[in-house]
């Protein structure tokens, strides 16, 4: 797997399918030689080293590893929320290190959706408003209709005007999912999406993630420590002590 990823050219690759049709598979996310080192006292603490990863359109990748293996840091770097000490990340062909913070934000808004363990809904906004928010930031005049449709899709048509604190954990995460998918992102980054949920609602959310992923052709990168969840992805990347081990 690792070898294959390394061999992937930077932008796109053309293969022939069984019917000899030309299919273009685009690399949505590509990381090369990612390392992260932080100062801890007077020592350098290596969190990540030499990570290479390429994810093509429609792929579903689980990043799995024990606590402290560096998986959340990797996700933050892949999202452009954190800077790597070494290496490069490209999202949708754009080199993150060449972009300033505002341009990275713009790229995130356009191409990346997020789902967090702690939901990260804005408490002062209703479910509908939370889902409208990314579209509003982008200046989409049809934000409300799109948000309404998306909330209906995740089964919360009756909860549009509820505030996060009046929703269950599973419902909150569904709102977060609706917010992530409403911009039709190429890439969905999920950080322990079921980490705060009980088994039942966790399973519901996971099913929803895979359904939406399939429907919209989104590329999924999910950080988790749940082996069974990871098995549902096409690919598994295992992290241990900051390195990819399998």
């Amino acid at each position, binding site marked *: 797997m690792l070898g294959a990823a390394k061999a992937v050219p930077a932008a796109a690759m053309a293969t022939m399918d069984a019917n000899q049709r030309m299919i273009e598979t685009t690399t949505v996310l590509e990381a090369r030689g990612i390392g992260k080192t932080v100062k801890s006292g007077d020592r350098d603490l290596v969190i990540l080293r030499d990570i290479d990863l390429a994810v093509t359109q429609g792929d579903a990748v689980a990043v799995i590893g024990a606590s402290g293996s560096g998986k959340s840091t990797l996700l933050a770097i892949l999202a452009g929320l954190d800077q790597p000490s070494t290496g490069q990340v490209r999202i949708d062909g754009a080199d993150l290190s060449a972009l300033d913070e505002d341009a990275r934000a713009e790229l995130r808004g356009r191409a990346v959706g*997020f789902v967090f363990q702690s939901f*990260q809904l804005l408490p002062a*906004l209703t479910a509908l*408003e939370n889902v409208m928010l990314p579209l509003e930031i982008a200046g989409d005049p049809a934000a409300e209709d799109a948000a309404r449709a998306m909330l209906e899709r995740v089964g919360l048509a009756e909860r549009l005007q509820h505030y996060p604190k009046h929703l269950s954990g599973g419902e909150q995460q569904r709102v977060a999912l609706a917010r992530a998918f409403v911009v039709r992102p190429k890439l969905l980054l999920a950080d322990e999406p079921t980490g705060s949920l009980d088994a039942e609602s966790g399973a519901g959310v996971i099913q929803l993630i895979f359904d939406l992923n399939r429907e919209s052709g989104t590329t999924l990168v999910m950080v988790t420590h749940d082996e069974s969840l990871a098995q549902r992805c096409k690919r598994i990347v295992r992290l241990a002590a900051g390195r990819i081990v399998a």
Partner: protein
Amino acid sequence: MERSPSTSARLRLALRMLARDWRAGELRVLAAALVVAVASVTSVAFFADRVSQALVRDAHQLLGADLVMVSDHAWDPVMRKAIVEHGLRDAEAWNFISMVRAGDAQQAQGEGPRNQLAGVKAVSAGYPLRGRLRTAPKPGAPDAPAAEGPARGTVWIEERLVSALGAPVGTRVRVGRSTFTVAAVLTLEPERSASFFNIAPRLMMNLDDVAATGLIQPGSRVRYYLYAAGARPALAEFEAWAKKRLGRGQRIDTLEDGRPRVRESIDRAQRFLGLTALLAAVLAGVAVALGTRRFVERHLDGCAVMRCLGAGQGQLLALYATEFTLLGLAACALGSALGFAAQGVIAGTLADLLRAELPPPTLWPALRGFLVGMVLLLGFALPPLVQLKNVPALRVMRREAGAPKVSAAASYALGLGLLAILLVWQAGDVELGLTIVGGFAGAVLLYALIAWGALGLLSSGAIARRLGARSPALRYGLANLRRHTRANAVQVASLALGLTAVLLLSFTRNDLVDAWRRAAPPDAPNRFVLGIQPDQLEAVKAFFAEQGIAVPDLYPMVRGRLTAVNGVAVDGKDYAGERAKRLVERAFNLSYAQTLPSHNQLAAGRWWPRGQGVPRELSVEEGIARTLGWKLGDALTFSVGSDSFTARITSLRRLRWDSMKVNFFVMAPPQLLSNYAASFVTAFHLAEGREVAMNALAAQFPNLTVVDVGAAVRQAQAVIDQLITAVQFVFLFALGAGVLVLYSALVATEDERRREAALMRVVGASRRHVTGSQRVEFLAMGVLAGALATAGAAALGQLLARRVFELDLPPSAMLLVVGPLAGLALLSLNAWLSSRKVLRASPALTLREET
């Protein structure tokens, strides 16, 4: 997808965010602070605008002439002749205070004698030279311009006097020895603006009738006016000629220099109102700053999420700046509307004093209110808001990734600077404005430093260990104090600030007002008799004896003018302070006595011994000595008539001015003064129901001025009460702002405390433990804030009493008790409320909301 939203889309988003934050209750305190600030500033500005419009409108007839000459002694006839010789029109008027009595007809009807102190203006033919007098046939009837002043044998009286005397047009009133027919109700006179705050109602009479009243005698207090009007060159020539011939106590007013003097008192009242309004604005600024800080803290996470969702830094800043600007505009509009309503109340309260129809206000003051509101918002809300744009998006994954903190001093420098400019503008005085801003900033800094030091000391190792050994709650409480020293110091300082304002505005103000209008004891003298001539002494004494009134002490009074101190000529310009200038400029009432009057107390030096020769000694009231910088041993030179004498200060006396007895600033041994022309003065208590005796006195001695002090005090009090009501109204705004600061300071650390308490409960702390440790923390902070606020309010109160009201005010015992208790009570209430909130909610929920 379109990635660069249009301006209108951004505006719509800002509006929606405003609506959402408003709904969530995040903006209410902030908006309230702005509304209070703008309302308080605009209410005063609207009122000031109307008054100044009235002054401009009436400017042409403000003086009643092109040039007015004022003197405290009669003009040399040469002067009036010179006006005519310069080709100018001339007129003359005398102003004095006198008791006016309803005529016999009214008494016969069994209504009892009615007296009223009136401001008499006796005018010559031709008055006024500019503008017109207006009269009405009865109170409330439409008035019309009058061709000239009252004819001989008649008077015109103001409406207030008509009702006080029960003397409508056609009835008779007595002034001194003469009786006059009330011929009209005086509705308007030039110079009325000069008497905006006049106490005594006007009685206008013919100058030629004055002599017959017998009212003007040596020692009578009269202001003599000469008026001139005509062509500009002739006027200038006359002014130059006359200026060289002015004596002491004489001056020339023209429209240019007369107006500022006329406006002085009203200006001062307005400045006072304006500064109070700005105090409210400054306090509101603190509330805005505290409120915005809380807003920012609560929006850090949301901003991080929004950056994750694609919002750029510039977009975020623009979004919140727009949201706040929209909020500001709405708050300013509401504040201006409130201010407009409030100015109506102020003008209504002062209607009796203003005695002039005020034109409707313009819209300028609203603009000023908007300016103040926006300055507060931009100055105190924008700096913390800038923090929001710097929130790293990483915060969504790692909570500890916060915004880079900017130092408070640096971020609020803009606000303070803008506020300083506003204050200077409002105060119309750079020094005063800067003093207020500096004093305010200094006080906040001092409060914070003291709080920081005291909290640090209290929670420092040794003390904390000793106290903490007793109970774990105490130990955790003190540990919390240490951990939050900085945040707590800021909270204590803001609390102390709000509490200072509230204490100052409630307690100290009441004390000041009480001291200001302190009523005399019930048996204190209530009548003054002035102008008793030496040859009337025995007859007056006999009169009292006949009437069965204890013969009061009669004090001689010689009018003298201070010309030199220690051989150096006196010039009002050399004295700092309005009061000192006024004191040295005007004539002194000198008295003489062999022995110290019984109600006086020797404070320093010694009283003059009985003996031969002429002791050149003076005894001076200690307050005036302090004001004018006189010491024992200083030589004062007084001129009396054309003569003068010099003597040294050998004693200082302490007086009780509120005793209502006859008191003198300067006294001398009889040998020094008894050769000068003196009149005598006395004060006595007239029992109720004996008013007839005064009528008899006035009938027998028409030259005497009998002043009903009770009535005068009541009249003065009515005026002061109105002023106080007006000022209080503005005080209410400042009080509101103070309360807002208190509230904002209390809730400032609420979120963090809730989170910590929840954590403590998660790790197994009992409710008692959590509340106990919070209580310790709040207790320490409450006592500290209360003590600081008490000290601050007491110090400010003293400063106000001495500098502004010029009276000694002992610190109020109530304040000393209530101040610290208020601090304690506030924080206890807060501790109770917040612990209830924390304990009611499940720890898990609290923590989940926070993450």
